[in-house]
Protein backbone atom coordinates (compact mmCIF):
# COMPACT_ATOMS: atom_id res chain seq x y z
CA UNK A 1 0.00 0.00 0.00
CA UNK A 2 1.46 3.32 -1.12
CA UNK A 3 0.20 6.70 0.02
CA UNK A 4 1.66 9.81 -1.62
CA UNK A 5 0.64 13.25 -0.42
CA UNK A 6 1.53 16.54 -2.03
CA UNK A 7 4.91 15.59 -3.46
CA UNK A 8 7.22 18.30 -4.80
CA UNK A 9 10.59 18.02 -6.50
CA UNK A 10 12.44 20.52 -8.63
CA UNK A 11 15.84 20.49 -10.31
CA UNK A 12 17.01 24.08 -10.37
CA UNK A 13 14.39 26.02 -12.26
CA UNK A 14 12.57 22.95 -13.53
CA UNK A 15 9.63 21.83 -11.42
CA UNK A 16 9.61 18.11 -12.22
CA UNK A 17 6.96 17.09 -9.70
CA UNK A 18 4.58 19.76 -8.54
CA UNK A 19 2.17 18.54 -5.89
CA UNK A 20 1.46 14.90 -6.75
CA UNK A 21 -0.87 12.84 -4.52
CA UNK A 22 -2.25 9.35 -5.10
CA UNK A 23 -2.80 5.97 -3.49
CA UNK A 24 -1.87 2.49 -4.69
CA UNK A 25 -3.63 -0.36 -2.89
CA UNK A 26 -2.62 -3.94 -2.38
CA UNK A 27 -4.09 -6.38 -4.88
CA UNK A 28 -4.51 -3.59 -7.40
CA UNK A 29 -2.57 -2.34 -10.39
CA UNK A 30 -2.14 1.43 -10.36
CA UNK A 31 -1.04 3.11 -13.58
CA UNK A 32 0.83 6.40 -13.68
CA UNK A 33 -0.12 7.64 -17.14
CA UNK A 34 1.35 10.73 -18.69
CA UNK A 35 3.32 12.10 -21.62
CA UNK A 36 7.11 11.89 -21.68
CA UNK A 37 8.63 14.33 -19.22
CA UNK A 38 5.50 14.58 -17.09
CA UNK A 39 7.35 13.61 -13.90
CA UNK A 40 6.53 9.92 -13.69
CA UNK A 41 10.10 8.67 -13.37
CA UNK A 42 10.98 11.38 -10.83
CA UNK A 43 7.95 10.36 -8.75
CA UNK A 44 9.01 6.72 -8.85
CA UNK A 45 12.58 7.61 -7.93
CA UNK A 46 11.29 9.37 -4.83
CA UNK A 47 9.23 6.29 -4.00
CA UNK A 48 12.25 4.03 -4.07
CA UNK A 49 14.23 6.59 -2.06
CA UNK A 50 16.86 7.38 -4.66
CA UNK A 51 15.75 11.02 -4.70
CA UNK A 52 14.70 12.94 -1.60
CA UNK A 53 11.48 14.92 -2.14
CA UNK A 54 11.63 18.69 -1.60
CA UNK A 55 8.29 18.52 0.13
CA UNK A 56 5.45 16.11 0.71
CA UNK A 57 4.89 12.77 2.31
CA UNK A 58 5.39 9.19 1.13
CA UNK A 59 4.29 6.10 3.05
CA UNK A 60 4.88 2.61 1.74
CA UNK A 61 3.22 0.11 4.07
CA UNK A 62 3.57 2.79 6.70
CA UNK A 63 7.30 3.37 6.08
CA UNK A 64 8.89 6.69 5.09
CA UNK A 65 11.61 6.46 2.39
CA UNK A 66 13.42 9.44 3.90
CA UNK A 67 13.81 7.74 7.29
CA UNK A 68 13.53 4.01 6.63
CA UNK A 69 15.32 3.81 3.28
CA UNK A 70 16.89 0.41 3.96
CA UNK A 71 13.65 -1.06 5.31
CA UNK A 72 11.66 0.21 2.33
CA UNK A 73 14.18 -1.13 -0.16
CA UNK A 74 13.64 -4.58 1.32
CA UNK A 75 9.91 -4.44 0.64
CA UNK A 76 10.21 -2.94 -2.84
CA UNK A 77 10.77 -4.60 -6.18
CA UNK A 78 11.78 -2.05 -8.79
CA UNK A 79 12.23 -2.39 -12.54
CA UNK A 80 13.59 1.02 -13.54
CA UNK A 81 13.38 2.47 -17.00
CA UNK A 82 17.08 1.76 -17.29
CA UNK A 83 17.17 -2.01 -17.06
CA UNK A 84 20.95 -1.87 -16.53
CA UNK A 85 21.87 -5.54 -16.66
CA UNK A 86 25.54 -6.45 -16.41
CA UNK A 87 26.47 -7.64 -19.86
CA UNK A 88 29.53 -9.58 -18.73
CA UNK A 89 27.45 -11.62 -16.30
CA UNK A 90 24.93 -14.30 -17.20
CA UNK A 91 21.24 -13.77 -16.52
CA UNK A 92 21.52 -16.09 -13.54
CA UNK A 93 24.55 -14.24 -12.14
CA UNK A 94 22.69 -10.94 -12.51
CA UNK A 95 19.84 -12.29 -10.41
CA UNK A 96 22.16 -13.92 -7.85
CA UNK A 97 23.97 -10.61 -7.40
CA UNK A 98 20.79 -8.82 -6.38
CA UNK A 99 19.66 -11.74 -4.24
CA UNK A 100 22.94 -11.59 -2.34
CA UNK A 101 22.65 -7.83 -1.96
CA UNK A 102 19.31 -8.52 -0.33
CA UNK A 103 21.07 -10.87 2.04
CA UNK A 104 19.35 -14.02 0.80
CA UNK A 105 20.95 -17.42 1.27
CA UNK A 106 22.40 -19.25 -1.73
CA UNK A 107 19.78 -21.95 -1.34
CA UNK A 108 16.89 -19.46 -1.27
CA UNK A 109 18.24 -17.66 -4.33
CA UNK A 110 18.62 -20.91 -6.23
CA UNK A 111 15.05 -21.96 -5.51
CA UNK A 112 13.69 -18.54 -6.35
CA UNK A 113 15.52 -18.47 -9.71
CA UNK A 114 14.10 -21.91 -10.44
CA UNK A 115 10.54 -20.67 -9.95
CA UNK A 116 11.01 -17.44 -11.83
CA UNK A 117 12.74 -19.11 -14.76
CA UNK A 118 9.61 -21.22 -15.14
CA UNK A 119 7.17 -18.32 -14.63
CA UNK A 120 8.95 -15.92 -16.98
CA UNK A 121 10.01 -18.63 -19.45
CA UNK A 122 13.73 -17.85 -19.21
CA UNK A 123 15.05 -21.40 -19.54
CA UNK A 124 16.70 -20.77 -22.93
CA UNK A 125 18.90 -17.94 -21.82
CA UNK A 126 19.21 -18.08 -18.03
CA UNK A 127 22.85 -19.19 -18.24
CA UNK A 128 23.87 -16.96 -21.12
CA UNK A 129 25.67 -13.65 -20.73
CA UNK A 130 23.18 -10.83 -21.16
CA UNK A 131 25.25 -9.11 -23.83
CA UNK A 132 23.16 -9.05 -27.00
CA UNK A 133 19.90 -10.02 -25.28
CA UNK A 134 16.66 -8.90 -26.95
CA UNK A 135 14.58 -6.24 -25.21
CA UNK A 136 12.13 -8.92 -24.15
CA UNK A 137 14.85 -11.04 -22.58
CA UNK A 138 16.30 -7.95 -20.88
CA UNK A 139 12.98 -7.06 -19.30
CA UNK A 140 12.42 -10.60 -18.10
CA UNK A 141 15.82 -10.70 -16.41
CA UNK A 142 15.31 -7.22 -14.95
CA UNK A 143 11.97 -8.31 -13.52
CA UNK A 144 13.37 -11.54 -12.13
CA UNK A 145 16.20 -9.57 -10.59
CA UNK A 146 13.83 -7.06 -9.02
CA UNK A 147 11.50 -9.77 -7.72
CA UNK A 148 14.14 -12.14 -6.38
CA UNK A 149 13.39 -11.21 -2.74
CA UNK A 150 9.60 -11.49 -3.21
CA UNK A 151 8.74 -7.86 -2.48
CA UNK A 152 5.24 -6.81 -1.48
CA UNK A 153 5.26 -3.63 -3.53
CA UNK A 154 6.30 -3.63 -7.19
CA UNK A 155 7.27 -0.51 -9.16
CA UNK A 156 7.66 -0.81 -12.92
CA UNK A 157 8.89 2.14 -14.99
CA UNK A 158 7.78 1.88 -18.62
CA UNK A 159 7.87 -1.91 -18.45
CA UNK A 160 6.78 -2.61 -22.02
CA UNK A 161 9.20 -0.14 -23.63
CA UNK A 162 10.66 -1.69 -26.76
CA UNK A 163 8.86 -5.02 -26.36
CA UNK A 164 7.22 -6.90 -29.22
CA UNK A 165 3.63 -8.10 -29.05
CA UNK A 166 4.38 -11.54 -27.65
CA UNK A 167 6.67 -10.22 -24.94
CA UNK A 168 4.14 -7.55 -24.01
CA UNK A 169 1.44 -10.20 -23.64
CA UNK A 170 3.66 -12.32 -21.43
CA UNK A 171 4.56 -9.30 -19.34
CA UNK A 172 0.93 -8.31 -18.81
CA UNK A 173 0.11 -11.85 -17.85
CA UNK A 174 2.84 -11.76 -15.23
CA UNK A 175 1.69 -8.40 -13.83
CA UNK A 176 -1.84 -9.77 -13.46
CA UNK A 177 -0.44 -12.73 -11.55
CA UNK A 178 1.29 -10.33 -9.17
CA UNK A 179 -1.99 -8.56 -8.59
CA UNK A 180 -3.77 -11.83 -7.98
CA UNK A 181 -1.15 -12.73 -5.40
CA UNK A 182 -2.05 -9.59 -3.48
CA UNK A 183 0.91 -7.38 -4.42
CA UNK A 184 0.59 -3.66 -4.80
CA UNK A 185 1.72 -2.90 -8.37
CA UNK A 186 2.51 0.58 -9.69
CA UNK A 187 3.51 0.99 -13.30
CA UNK A 188 4.34 4.14 -15.17
CA UNK A 189 3.68 4.37 -18.87
CA UNK A 190 2.84 6.73 -21.67
CA UNK A 191 0.93 4.01 -23.52
CA UNK A 192 -2.82 4.17 -23.04
CA UNK A 193 -3.57 0.64 -24.21
CA UNK A 194 -1.39 -0.54 -21.41
CA UNK A 195 -3.34 1.14 -18.65
CA UNK A 196 -6.62 0.27 -20.33
CA UNK A 197 -5.65 -3.39 -20.49
CA UNK A 198 -4.09 -3.69 -17.05
CA UNK A 199 -4.84 -1.05 -14.51
CA UNK A 200 -7.51 -0.90 -11.86
CA UNK A 201 -6.78 2.71 -11.08
CA UNK A 202 -5.27 5.36 -13.32
CA UNK A 203 -3.37 8.45 -12.17
CA UNK A 204 -2.93 10.84 -15.07
CA UNK A 205 0.13 13.02 -14.60
CA UNK A 206 0.97 16.02 -16.75
CA UNK A 207 3.53 18.77 -16.16
CA UNK A 208 4.30 17.41 -12.73
CA UNK A 209 0.73 17.53 -11.52
CA UNK A 210 -2.07 14.99 -11.18
CA UNK A 211 -4.58 15.87 -13.90
CA UNK A 212 -7.06 13.16 -12.96
CA UNK A 213 -7.31 10.05 -10.82
CA UNK A 214 -9.76 7.12 -10.78
CA UNK A 215 -10.86 3.88 -12.40
CA UNK A 216 -11.29 3.71 -16.18
CA UNK A 217 -15.06 4.16 -15.96
CA UNK A 218 -14.73 7.04 -13.51
CA UNK A 219 -12.37 8.85 -15.86
CA UNK A 220 -14.67 8.31 -18.86
CA UNK A 221 -17.62 9.54 -16.87
CA UNK A 222 -15.83 12.61 -15.58
CA UNK A 223 -14.56 13.69 -19.00
CA UNK A 224 -17.74 12.77 -20.84
CA UNK A 225 -15.70 10.97 -23.49
CA UNK A 226 -16.30 7.65 -25.26
CA UNK A 227 -12.74 6.33 -25.27
CA UNK A 228 -9.88 6.55 -22.81
CA UNK A 229 -7.72 8.23 -25.44
CA UNK A 230 -10.15 11.11 -25.83
CA UNK A 231 -10.52 11.33 -22.08
CA UNK A 232 -6.75 11.44 -21.69
CA UNK A 233 -6.31 14.25 -24.22
CA UNK A 234 -9.15 16.19 -22.71
CA UNK A 235 -7.94 15.75 -19.14
CA UNK A 236 -4.35 16.81 -19.75
CA UNK A 237 -5.55 19.45 -22.23
CA UNK A 238 -2.96 18.68 -24.91
CA UNK A 239 -1.88 16.03 -27.38
CA UNK A 240 1.75 16.81 -26.82
CA UNK A 241 3.98 13.89 -25.98
CA UNK A 242 1.19 11.42 -26.51
CA UNK A 243 2.23 8.15 -28.06
CA UNK A 244 0.01 5.21 -28.81
Amino acid sequence: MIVVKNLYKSFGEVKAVNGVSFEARDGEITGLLGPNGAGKTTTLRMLYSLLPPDQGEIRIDGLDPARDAMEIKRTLGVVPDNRGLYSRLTARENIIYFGELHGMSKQAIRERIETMTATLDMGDFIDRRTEGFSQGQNVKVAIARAMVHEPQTVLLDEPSNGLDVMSTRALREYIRELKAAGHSVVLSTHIMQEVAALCDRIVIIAKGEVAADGTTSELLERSGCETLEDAFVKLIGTEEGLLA
Partner: protein
Amino acid sequence: MRGLTTVFKKEVRENIRDRRALFNSLLLGPLLFPLLFVGMMWFLESAEKERADKILELPVIGAQYAPSLIRFLEQQGTLIQPEPENPEEMVRSQEVPVVLRILPEFPEKWSEGLPAPVEVISDPSRQESNAPIRRVKGLLYGYGQQIGSLRLQLRGISPQLASPIMIKDVDLSTPKSRAILAVIFLPYVLMITAFTGATHLAMDTTAGEKERKSLEPLLINPVPRWQIMTGKMLTTMVFAMASLALTLVSFRFVLPFMPVGAFGMDLTLGVETLLKILLVISPVAILAAALLTLLASFAKSYREAQSYMGLVILIPMIPSLIFMANPIRAETWMMNIPLFSQNLLIGEIIRDQPVPLEWYGLSIASTLAIGLVLAALAATLYNRPKLIFGSS
Protein backbone atom coordinates in the same frame (compact mmCIF):
# COMPACT_ATOMS: atom_id res chain seq x y z
CA MET B 1 29.72 -5.81 5.38
CA ARG B 2 27.69 -8.40 3.50
CA GLY B 3 26.92 -5.86 0.78
CA LEU B 4 30.55 -4.83 0.54
CA THR B 5 31.84 -8.33 -0.05
CA THR B 6 29.01 -9.10 -2.48
CA VAL B 7 29.88 -6.03 -4.56
CA PHE B 8 33.57 -6.87 -4.36
CA LYS B 9 33.10 -10.45 -5.53
CA LYS B 10 30.84 -9.43 -8.38
CA GLU B 11 33.18 -6.67 -9.60
CA VAL B 12 36.16 -9.02 -9.56
CA ARG B 13 34.25 -11.66 -11.51
CA GLU B 14 32.91 -9.14 -13.99
CA ASN B 15 36.26 -7.50 -14.60
CA ILE B 16 38.14 -10.74 -14.95
CA ARG B 17 35.80 -11.33 -17.89
CA ASP B 18 36.62 -7.93 -19.32
CA ARG B 19 39.43 -8.16 -21.80
CA ARG B 20 40.08 -4.44 -21.59
CA ALA B 21 40.54 -4.58 -17.82
CA LEU B 22 42.86 -7.56 -18.03
CA PHE B 23 44.89 -5.94 -20.73
CA ASN B 24 45.21 -2.60 -18.96
CA SER B 25 45.88 -3.90 -15.48
CA LEU B 26 47.57 -7.20 -15.89
CA LEU B 27 49.30 -7.15 -19.24
CA LEU B 28 50.23 -3.66 -20.35
CA GLY B 29 52.32 -2.54 -17.37
CA PRO B 30 53.84 -5.87 -16.42
CA LEU B 31 54.96 -6.64 -19.95
CA LEU B 32 55.62 -3.28 -21.49
CA PHE B 33 57.69 -1.56 -18.82
CA PRO B 34 60.28 -4.27 -18.16
CA LEU B 35 60.79 -4.80 -21.88
CA LEU B 36 61.08 -1.07 -22.37
CA PHE B 37 63.66 -0.92 -19.59
CA VAL B 38 65.81 -3.70 -20.97
CA GLY B 39 65.50 -2.31 -24.47
CA MET B 40 66.62 1.08 -23.27
CA MET B 41 69.61 -0.39 -21.46
CA TRP B 42 70.69 -2.36 -24.49
CA PHE B 43 70.38 0.68 -26.66
CA LEU B 44 72.34 2.92 -24.30
CA GLU B 45 75.04 0.34 -23.83
CA SER B 46 75.54 -0.43 -27.48
CA ALA B 47 75.60 3.24 -28.40
CA GLU B 48 78.20 3.92 -25.72
CA LYS B 49 80.30 0.97 -26.79
CA GLU B 50 80.20 1.94 -30.41
CA ARG B 51 81.45 5.41 -29.65
CA ALA B 52 84.28 4.09 -27.46
CA ASP B 53 85.46 1.46 -29.90
CA LYS B 54 85.26 3.56 -33.01
CA ILE B 55 88.48 4.82 -34.58
CA LEU B 56 88.70 8.53 -33.90
CA GLU B 57 88.54 10.41 -37.19
CA LEU B 58 89.87 13.91 -36.73
CA PRO B 59 89.94 16.61 -39.39
CA VAL B 60 92.92 18.86 -38.75
CA ILE B 61 93.54 22.39 -40.00
CA GLY B 62 97.12 23.52 -40.18
CA ALA B 63 98.65 20.07 -39.73
CA GLN B 64 101.86 21.40 -41.32
CA TYR B 65 102.52 23.68 -38.29
CA ALA B 66 102.89 20.77 -35.83
CA PRO B 67 104.17 17.63 -37.52
CA SER B 68 105.30 16.01 -34.27
CA LEU B 69 101.87 16.47 -32.67
CA ILE B 70 100.26 14.89 -35.74
CA ARG B 71 102.67 11.99 -35.52
CA PHE B 72 101.78 11.54 -31.85
CA LEU B 73 98.06 11.54 -32.64
CA GLU B 74 98.57 8.98 -35.41
CA GLN B 75 100.58 6.78 -33.10
CA GLN B 76 97.66 6.84 -30.68
CA GLY B 77 95.40 5.46 -33.41
CA THR B 78 93.79 8.66 -34.62
CA LEU B 79 92.92 8.84 -38.28
CA ILE B 80 93.93 12.33 -39.35
CA GLN B 81 91.56 13.73 -41.96
CA PRO B 82 92.45 16.40 -44.52
CA GLU B 83 91.67 20.03 -43.81
CA PRO B 84 87.93 20.76 -44.18
CA GLU B 85 86.76 23.85 -46.06
CA ASN B 86 84.38 25.17 -43.47
CA PRO B 87 85.08 23.46 -40.13
CA GLU B 88 82.55 25.45 -38.06
CA GLU B 89 79.78 24.56 -40.48
CA MET B 90 80.78 20.91 -40.50
CA VAL B 91 80.53 20.73 -36.72
CA ARG B 92 77.27 22.63 -36.68
CA SER B 93 75.69 20.35 -39.26
CA GLN B 94 76.99 17.35 -37.28
CA GLU B 95 79.05 15.99 -40.16
CA VAL B 96 81.94 15.58 -37.74
CA PRO B 97 81.79 15.84 -33.94
CA VAL B 98 85.09 17.63 -33.52
CA VAL B 99 87.72 19.45 -35.62
CA LEU B 100 91.26 20.37 -34.52
CA ARG B 101 92.79 23.66 -35.67
CA ILE B 102 96.50 24.30 -35.21
CA LEU B 103 97.09 28.03 -35.42
CA PRO B 104 99.90 29.50 -37.60
CA GLU B 105 101.75 30.90 -34.58
CA PHE B 106 102.07 27.37 -33.16
CA PRO B 107 105.70 26.72 -34.41
CA GLU B 108 106.93 30.10 -33.20
CA LYS B 109 105.51 29.80 -29.67
CA TRP B 110 106.57 26.16 -29.57
CA SER B 111 110.20 26.96 -30.23
CA GLU B 112 110.11 29.82 -27.71
CA GLY B 113 108.82 27.41 -25.06
CA LEU B 114 105.52 29.28 -24.65
CA PRO B 115 102.06 27.61 -24.67
CA ALA B 116 101.33 26.88 -28.33
CA PRO B 117 97.67 27.45 -29.28
CA VAL B 118 95.37 24.81 -30.75
CA GLU B 119 91.58 25.04 -31.06
CA VAL B 120 89.17 22.17 -30.47
CA ILE B 121 86.05 23.03 -32.46
CA SER B 122 83.00 21.19 -31.20
CA ASP B 123 79.47 21.49 -29.87
CA PRO B 124 79.42 19.91 -26.40
CA SER B 125 75.67 20.44 -26.12
CA ARG B 126 75.31 17.46 -28.44
CA GLN B 127 75.47 14.43 -26.23
CA GLU B 128 76.78 12.09 -28.89
CA SER B 129 79.88 14.22 -29.50
CA ASN B 130 80.96 14.15 -25.85
CA ALA B 131 82.98 10.95 -26.22
CA PRO B 132 85.09 12.12 -29.22
CA ILE B 133 85.65 15.53 -27.62
CA ARG B 134 86.86 13.86 -24.45
CA ARG B 135 89.20 11.66 -26.44
CA VAL B 136 90.72 14.52 -28.47
CA LYS B 137 91.25 16.64 -25.37
CA GLY B 138 92.72 13.67 -23.54
CA LEU B 139 95.20 13.07 -26.32
CA LEU B 140 96.21 16.73 -26.46
CA TYR B 141 96.63 16.85 -22.70
CA GLY B 142 98.71 13.70 -22.74
CA TYR B 143 100.95 15.08 -25.45
CA GLY B 144 101.36 18.33 -23.52
CA GLN B 145 102.32 16.45 -20.35
CA GLN B 146 104.84 14.36 -22.21
CA ILE B 147 106.53 17.35 -23.84
CA GLY B 148 106.40 19.34 -20.61
CA SER B 149 108.21 16.59 -18.71
CA LEU B 150 110.84 16.32 -21.41
CA ARG B 151 111.48 20.08 -21.31
CA LEU B 152 111.91 20.05 -17.54
CA GLN B 153 114.25 17.09 -17.72
CA LEU B 154 116.35 18.88 -20.36
CA ARG B 155 116.76 21.73 -17.91
CA GLY B 156 117.78 19.32 -15.20
CA ILE B 157 114.55 19.65 -13.18
CA SER B 158 112.55 16.69 -11.98
CA PRO B 159 109.14 16.69 -13.73
CA GLN B 160 107.64 15.63 -10.42
CA LEU B 161 108.10 19.19 -9.17
CA ALA B 162 105.46 20.24 -11.62
CA SER B 163 102.96 17.81 -10.10
CA PRO B 164 102.58 18.89 -6.48
CA ILE B 165 99.45 16.87 -6.04
CA MET B 166 98.82 13.28 -7.04
CA ILE B 167 95.15 12.38 -7.34
CA LYS B 168 94.15 8.79 -6.75
CA ASP B 169 90.62 7.60 -7.37
CA VAL B 170 89.31 5.42 -4.59
CA ASP B 171 86.00 4.09 -5.88
CA LEU B 172 83.76 3.03 -3.01
CA SER B 173 80.64 2.45 -5.02
CA THR B 174 79.50 -1.13 -5.06
CA PRO B 175 78.27 -2.46 -8.37
CA LYS B 176 74.70 -2.12 -7.07
CA SER B 177 74.90 1.52 -6.15
CA ARG B 178 76.17 2.33 -9.59
CA ALA B 179 72.90 1.21 -11.08
CA ILE B 180 71.64 4.77 -11.08
CA LEU B 181 69.32 4.29 -14.01
CA ALA B 182 67.60 1.36 -12.43
CA VAL B 183 67.32 3.22 -9.16
CA ILE B 184 65.43 6.01 -10.86
CA PHE B 185 63.56 4.00 -13.44
CA LEU B 186 62.14 1.21 -11.32
CA PRO B 187 60.32 3.41 -8.76
CA TYR B 188 59.08 5.54 -11.63
CA VAL B 189 57.65 2.55 -13.45
CA LEU B 190 56.11 1.07 -10.31
CA MET B 191 54.50 4.36 -9.38
CA ILE B 192 52.95 4.67 -12.82
CA THR B 193 51.86 1.02 -12.71
CA ALA B 194 50.04 1.59 -9.43
CA PHE B 195 47.99 4.24 -11.22
CA THR B 196 47.56 2.63 -14.64
CA GLY B 197 46.67 -0.68 -13.00
CA ALA B 198 43.83 1.06 -11.20
CA THR B 199 42.64 3.43 -13.90
CA HIS B 200 40.43 1.17 -15.97
CA LEU B 201 38.75 -0.43 -12.97
CA ALA B 202 38.12 2.89 -11.25
CA MET B 203 36.43 4.23 -14.36
CA ASP B 204 34.54 1.08 -15.29
CA THR B 205 33.04 0.50 -11.86
CA THR B 206 31.83 4.08 -11.45
CA ALA B 207 31.50 6.13 -14.64
CA GLY B 208 31.07 2.94 -16.67
CA GLU B 209 28.32 1.66 -14.40
CA LYS B 210 26.58 5.02 -14.69
CA GLU B 211 26.92 5.00 -18.46
CA ARG B 212 25.49 1.48 -18.76
CA LYS B 213 22.56 2.59 -16.59
CA SER B 214 23.11 -0.15 -14.04
CA LEU B 215 23.92 2.18 -11.16
CA GLU B 216 20.29 3.07 -10.48
CA PRO B 217 19.05 -0.52 -10.14
CA LEU B 218 22.10 -1.31 -8.01
CA LEU B 219 21.40 1.49 -5.56
CA ILE B 220 17.81 0.34 -5.09
CA ASN B 221 19.15 -2.64 -3.14
CA PRO B 222 19.12 -2.42 0.66
CA VAL B 223 22.87 -1.90 1.02
CA PRO B 224 24.44 1.28 2.37
CA ARG B 225 26.05 3.22 -0.44
CA TRP B 226 29.41 3.48 1.26
CA GLN B 227 29.59 -0.31 1.19
CA ILE B 228 28.88 -0.38 -2.53
CA MET B 229 31.55 2.23 -3.20
CA THR B 230 34.05 0.57 -0.90
CA GLY B 231 33.47 -2.78 -2.59
CA LYS B 232 34.23 -1.14 -5.91
CA MET B 233 37.33 0.57 -4.55
CA LEU B 234 38.59 -2.69 -3.07
CA THR B 235 38.32 -4.31 -6.49
CA THR B 236 40.29 -1.46 -8.01
CA MET B 237 42.95 -1.79 -5.31
CA VAL B 238 43.26 -5.52 -5.82
CA PHE B 239 43.75 -5.08 -9.55
CA ALA B 240 46.31 -2.32 -8.98
CA MET B 241 48.18 -4.56 -6.54
CA ALA B 242 48.06 -7.48 -8.93
CA SER B 243 49.40 -5.21 -11.62
CA LEU B 244 52.26 -4.13 -9.37
CA ALA B 245 53.11 -7.63 -8.23
CA LEU B 246 53.16 -8.89 -11.82
CA THR B 247 55.33 -5.98 -12.92
CA LEU B 248 57.83 -6.77 -10.18
CA VAL B 249 57.89 -10.45 -11.01
CA SER B 250 58.29 -9.62 -14.65
CA PHE B 251 61.27 -7.37 -13.83
CA ARG B 252 62.72 -10.20 -11.84
CA PHE B 253 62.72 -12.46 -14.88
CA VAL B 254 63.75 -9.86 -17.40
CA LEU B 255 66.71 -8.43 -15.47
CA PRO B 256 69.06 -11.37 -16.16
CA PHE B 257 68.85 -10.40 -19.83
CA MET B 258 70.27 -7.00 -19.12
CA PRO B 259 73.74 -6.05 -20.39
CA VAL B 260 75.34 -6.29 -16.97
CA GLY B 261 79.05 -5.81 -17.47
CA ALA B 262 79.02 -2.50 -19.25
CA PHE B 263 77.32 -0.69 -16.39
CA GLY B 264 78.91 -2.60 -13.58
CA MET B 265 75.39 -3.44 -12.49
CA ASP B 266 74.45 -6.28 -10.30
CA LEU B 267 70.71 -5.87 -10.10
CA THR B 268 69.01 -9.08 -9.13
CA LEU B 269 65.70 -8.74 -7.38
CA GLY B 270 65.62 -11.43 -4.77
CA VAL B 271 62.38 -12.58 -3.22
CA GLU B 272 63.06 -10.54 -0.09
CA THR B 273 63.76 -7.39 -2.10
CA LEU B 274 60.60 -7.93 -4.13
CA LEU B 275 58.50 -8.30 -1.00
CA LYS B 276 60.03 -5.19 0.54
CA ILE B 277 59.30 -3.17 -2.58
CA LEU B 278 55.76 -4.52 -2.71
CA LEU B 279 55.25 -3.55 0.93
CA VAL B 280 56.47 -0.03 0.26
CA ILE B 281 54.41 0.46 -2.89
CA SER B 282 51.16 -1.13 -1.69
CA PRO B 283 49.86 2.02 0.04
CA VAL B 284 50.28 3.82 -3.29
CA ALA B 285 47.90 1.33 -4.89
CA ILE B 286 45.34 2.18 -2.21
CA LEU B 287 45.90 5.90 -2.66
CA ALA B 288 45.63 5.58 -6.44
CA ALA B 289 42.45 3.49 -6.30
CA ALA B 290 40.79 5.98 -3.95
CA LEU B 291 41.86 9.04 -5.90
CA LEU B 292 40.87 7.62 -9.27
CA THR B 293 37.53 6.32 -7.99
CA LEU B 294 36.81 9.69 -6.44
CA LEU B 295 37.47 11.50 -9.70
CA ALA B 296 35.80 8.98 -11.98
CA SER B 297 32.63 9.16 -9.88
CA PHE B 298 32.10 12.71 -11.05
CA ALA B 299 32.16 11.70 -14.70
CA LYS B 300 28.96 10.80 -16.52
CA SER B 301 30.61 8.42 -18.93
CA TYR B 302 33.71 6.31 -19.36
CA ARG B 303 34.90 8.69 -22.01
CA GLU B 304 34.55 11.72 -19.79
CA ALA B 305 36.39 9.92 -17.02
CA GLN B 306 39.19 9.13 -19.44
CA SER B 307 39.73 12.80 -20.10
CA TYR B 308 40.42 13.38 -16.39
CA MET B 309 42.73 10.43 -16.13
CA GLY B 310 45.22 11.83 -18.62
CA LEU B 311 46.00 14.54 -16.07
CA VAL B 312 45.98 12.30 -13.02
CA ILE B 313 48.63 10.04 -14.47
CA LEU B 314 50.99 13.01 -14.24
CA ILE B 315 50.79 12.95 -10.44
CA PRO B 316 52.91 9.84 -9.88
CA MET B 317 55.42 11.13 -12.42
CA ILE B 318 56.16 14.37 -10.59
CA PRO B 319 58.25 12.98 -7.71
CA SER B 320 60.18 10.77 -10.09
CA LEU B 321 60.91 13.68 -12.39
CA ILE B 322 62.09 15.84 -9.49
CA PHE B 323 64.26 12.99 -8.35
CA MET B 324 65.69 12.53 -11.84
CA ALA B 325 66.56 16.19 -12.21
CA ASN B 326 67.91 16.54 -8.70
CA PRO B 327 68.89 13.31 -6.98
CA ILE B 328 68.86 13.93 -3.26
CA ARG B 329 69.82 11.96 -0.23
CA ALA B 330 66.97 10.33 1.62
CA GLU B 331 66.19 11.88 5.01
CA THR B 332 63.65 10.99 7.62
CA TRP B 333 61.28 13.92 7.08
CA MET B 334 60.95 13.07 3.39
CA MET B 335 59.25 9.81 4.34
CA ASN B 336 56.13 11.81 5.19
CA ILE B 337 55.57 12.75 1.56
CA PRO B 338 53.45 10.19 -0.31
CA LEU B 339 54.80 9.09 -3.70
CA PHE B 340 58.09 10.85 -3.05
CA SER B 341 58.98 8.65 -0.09
CA GLN B 342 58.34 5.51 -2.14
CA ASN B 343 60.74 6.75 -4.80
CA LEU B 344 63.47 7.19 -2.23
CA LEU B 345 62.75 3.97 -0.36
CA ILE B 346 62.71 1.77 -3.44
CA GLY B 347 65.97 3.38 -4.52
CA GLU B 348 67.52 2.50 -1.17
CA ILE B 349 66.16 -1.03 -1.27
CA ILE B 350 67.53 -1.69 -4.75
CA ARG B 351 70.93 -0.39 -3.69
CA ASP B 352 70.77 -2.81 -0.78
CA GLN B 353 71.18 -0.02 1.75
CA PRO B 354 69.94 -0.60 5.28
CA VAL B 355 66.63 1.22 5.62
CA PRO B 356 65.49 2.28 9.11
CA LEU B 357 62.20 0.68 10.12
CA GLU B 358 60.95 4.14 11.02
CA TRP B 359 61.18 5.12 7.35
CA TYR B 360 58.98 2.24 6.29
CA GLY B 361 56.50 3.17 8.99
CA LEU B 362 56.34 6.86 8.11
CA SER B 363 56.05 6.25 4.39
CA ILE B 364 53.31 3.65 4.73
CA ALA B 365 51.40 5.60 7.37
CA SER B 366 51.41 8.94 5.56
CA THR B 367 50.40 7.43 2.23
CA LEU B 368 47.73 5.24 3.80
CA ALA B 369 46.33 8.20 5.74
CA ILE B 370 45.81 10.26 2.60
CA GLY B 371 44.51 7.23 0.72
CA LEU B 372 41.95 6.51 3.41
CA VAL B 373 40.79 10.12 3.56
CA LEU B 374 40.24 10.06 -0.20
CA ALA B 375 38.52 6.69 0.06
CA ALA B 376 36.21 8.01 2.77
CA LEU B 377 35.34 10.96 0.55
CA ALA B 378 34.68 8.68 -2.41
CA ALA B 379 32.58 6.34 -0.29
CA THR B 380 30.11 9.07 0.55
CA LEU B 381 29.86 10.45 -2.96
CA TYR B 382 26.83 8.45 -4.00
CA ASN B 383 24.84 9.98 -1.18
CA ARG B 384 24.47 12.89 -3.56
CA PRO B 385 21.68 12.24 -6.09
CA LYS B 386 23.35 14.52 -8.60
CA LEU B 387 26.21 12.07 -8.93
CA ILE B 388 23.86 9.16 -9.54
CA PHE B 389 21.84 10.70 -12.30
CA GLY B 390 24.56 12.82 -13.82
CA SER B 391 23.29 16.23 -14.77
CA SER B 392 19.57 15.57 -14.27
